[in-house]
């Protein structure tokens, strides 16, 4: 056999339940099954990685033959990696308030139909709601004798409403996902909100693009944190030379008092009890008092780069672990919301998120609000739609003029390297100076 410095195996067996209701029609409501395993071998240089369906982790013979196959892959690699020592340990998984497995599919479908129906307010022509539930049974073992298993349960939904009038079509959407139990009861309010936003957007104006003051609501400020700072602090990007934050530890990248954290141990949607390499998870302060203080690491990037905290390796089932965010947020400051609007005077208030993207090497990011309001004389004025914001990582945090005191986390999914993992982002309301607003209004 080729040289094996280390190996690990991670199996995820589970079920995915989806309910999809489109304009009152139950399009599908059912459960699918998967059983994926990833076997990694660190050879004399780099990783050989195998992905298989349905591996018997308890069969010594099967494990041996997979390790051997992976070691042959590792033999073609050239990039020499080492693994840093890292603390071990598994946190208890937060107890489920109500186990979604105790709720039958019929009731889930009925509850989702209630949310979807609530979105159908006057003026809304189309509504769609999706319930997503994932039950993952995770087992891990490695050649250092570490072994763990846990179960992750996720439950949540999204609802979209589309309003149209005279050929104009606008959308409102809401979502809520949690890891702490069944999450579909008493949620009609969110459906109604999606419908109301869609209808009010019919009369919203397209904002004029340009540089102005912007107030970000906690959800959008969370996406801002994730795109503007989170990705660029990922140790793999830093190691490859693909992040503008490389070599900047100890440098001031934001205003005094600014604290930016990634914390996989928080019982939010990005919670993991242990990372995908069997490393204990802990709160990581990426930025402390405006100074870049930690990168997010796995064992290999910690060994190669240093200056940070391991325990940030995550993977979608059936994919190798890479460095990822979990629950990423800006800590509360002391500005009240009214004070932030007042200080903004004339600018734009941006609410909700349609997602974002970053080019961490160039240090440029873009993200999009669901809607917003002009701010005139410190007061909320007319509604605007289809408004984006872009910025540069190294300058944008200096432009945070006020940090609110009302942090809120929002769940979502983050894509990287073709893998999607559950995360949450959050922040209090933020006031940004010199924000580049993209909009096609004249």
């Amino acid at each position, binding site marked *: 056999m080729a040289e094996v410095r280390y190996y690990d195996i991670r199996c995820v067996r589970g079920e995915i339940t989806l309910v999809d209701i489109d304009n009152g029609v139950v399009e599908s409501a059912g459960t699918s099954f998967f059983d994926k395993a990833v076997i990694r071998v660190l050879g004399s240089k780099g990783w050989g990685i195998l992905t298989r369906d349905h591996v018997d982790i308890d069969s010594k013979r099967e494990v041996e033959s997979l390790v051997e196959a992976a070691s042959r892959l590792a033999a073609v690699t050239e990039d020499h990696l080492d693994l840093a020592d890292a603390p071990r340990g598994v946190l208890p998984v937060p107890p489920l308030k109500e186990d979604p497995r105790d709720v039958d599919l019929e009731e889930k479908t009925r509850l989702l139909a209630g949310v979807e129906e609530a979105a159908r307010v006057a003026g809304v022509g189309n509504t769609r709601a999706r319930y997503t539930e994932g039950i993952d049974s995770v087992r891990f073992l490695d050649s250092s004798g570490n072994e763990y298993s846990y179960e992750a349960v996720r439950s949540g939904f999204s609802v979209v409403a589309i309003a149209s009038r005279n050929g104009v079509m606008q959308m409102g959407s809401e979502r809520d996902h949690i890891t702490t139990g069944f999450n579909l009861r008493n949620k009609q309010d969110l459906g109604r909100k999606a419908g109301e936003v869609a209808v009010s957007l019919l009369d919203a104006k397209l904002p004029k693009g340009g540089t102005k003051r912007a107030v970000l609501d906690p959800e959008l400020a969370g996406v801002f944190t994730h795109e503007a700072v989170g990705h660029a602090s990922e140790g793999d990007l830093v190691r490859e030379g693909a992040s503008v934050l490389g070599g900047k530890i100890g440098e001031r990248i934001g205003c005094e008092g600014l604290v930016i954290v990634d914390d996989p141990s928080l019982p939010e949607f990005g919670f993991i009890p242990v990372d995908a390499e069997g490393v204990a998870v802990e709160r990581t302060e990426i930025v402390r008092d405006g100074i870049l203080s930690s990168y997010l690491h796995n064992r290999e990037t910690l060994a190669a780069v240093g200056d940070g905290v391991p325990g940030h390796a995550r993977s979608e089932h059936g994919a190798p672990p890479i460095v990822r965010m979990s629950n990423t947020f800006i800590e509360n400051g002391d500005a009240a919301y009214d004070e932030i609007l007042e200080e903004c005077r004339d600018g734009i208030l941006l609410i909700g998120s349609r997602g974002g993207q970053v080019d961490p090497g160039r240090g440029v990011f873009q993200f999009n609000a669901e809607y917003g309001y002009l701010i005139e004389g410190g007061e909320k004025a007319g509604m605007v739609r289809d408004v984006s914001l872009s910025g540069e990582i190294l300058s944008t945090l200096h432009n945070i003029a006020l940090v609110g005191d009302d942090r809120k986390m929002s769940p979502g999914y983050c894509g990287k390297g073709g893998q999607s993992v559950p995360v949450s982002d959050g922040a209090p309301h933020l006031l940004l100076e010199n924000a580049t607003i*993209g909009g096609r209004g004249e």
Partner: protein
Amino acid sequence: MNGEDLIERILREGERRADEVEVFYARGLSVGTEIKKGILGNAEESEAWNMAVRTVKDGRIGFSATSDPDRWKECLDAALASGRLATPQQWAGFPKPADLTGTPSSADGDLVVAVEDAARMVGDLLSGAAEHPVEVVGGGADLARSYLAVANSSGIFYGMDRTVAAVSLEAIRERSTGYEFDASPFLAEIDARSVGEQAASLAARSLSGRDIETGRYDVVLSPVAAASLLGQVLLPALSGRNVKAGRSFLADKIGDQVFDERISVYDDPFAPGLGSTAWDAEGTPTRRLVFVEQGVLGRFAYDLKTGYRYGEGSTGSAVRSGGEPPGIGFHNLFIDGPRMKEPGDERAVWIHDVVGAHTANPFSGDFSVEISNPFWIEGGDLTEPIRTAMLSGNVFEMLAGIGGLGNDARRVGRLTIPSIRLNNQQIIGK
């Protein structure tokens, strides 16, 4: 039990308990080599197996899937259980065996799924990138072969092979980045060296871009940038499901001149491409579909479910991804039309790619995105890099009045598209 025997067993067992049964089966082997620190980092091999079952009883469609052959009974039970909750609909049966015409090709007999071959392609990528003074920060090569089959209780059993060779490279020079990629069913079509060289060239040449003032400019979207925006906005608008649900800007516009007369949009499942096939993901024979001809909207795409529900019939447009139920999609979609000599002849802002295309509003077509590797173009040459800016616009309005299409059509996933010149677009500088 091999896949074929298991399919038979599920069909027989399912028929006893439902009016109709369908099994979609996929197995595949792929290898990949990833570039780290400018040399070969990880080497990966993946074997995947998936079986998806649909049952129909009294017009109620049930679905489940499994990647574990031992759980096939549970999977069939789950499909039947899900059918009991689905809203019943008009349904006239899964397709019966048909004479499949044409011989689409999306498999390369010469493609071997071997890690050594992928490693050689990484070598070619890196030697291409070495032509410019850049750091290589990512990328890799993948080779894959899969077998897909669809079988149903009406007697269909179609199977096909697919292959994919794919390469990508990401380069950086100071704070200027460049990314290029290519994928094809045919190994011989992939020029890894050239992909590496192009990515490196973008990073090297985009350095020290000059600022641009906010204002209106003529722009040229490269095929990559055009594919990103059209993929997010135009493709969903052509789906019959979105049309019937009132989610498509193009609904009620059949027969209208919706786009510039120089634009045609068609799906050709018989052209060589990543999605070439004689039958769709439900076993319906595929055909060439012209959605837009010289700017006039002609039709939409349907699968069985939406086709039966609205009396439109399937257009053979069902596709699947992973273990999900079939949905409406495209096999090899082309944006085509008469070409202009050189879309970048008169001075314009050339845009290689955009950041954040997925945030475009798919219903209204409005977007504002950050642009990547923008250059001033004149006389067909990229003359000077631009530092950074946003582009705001509306995809449907853009397509209604284009400046012209370039001669440089390329394959971006399942879309084949040329560069598009657009006059008088909104650019927001910093």
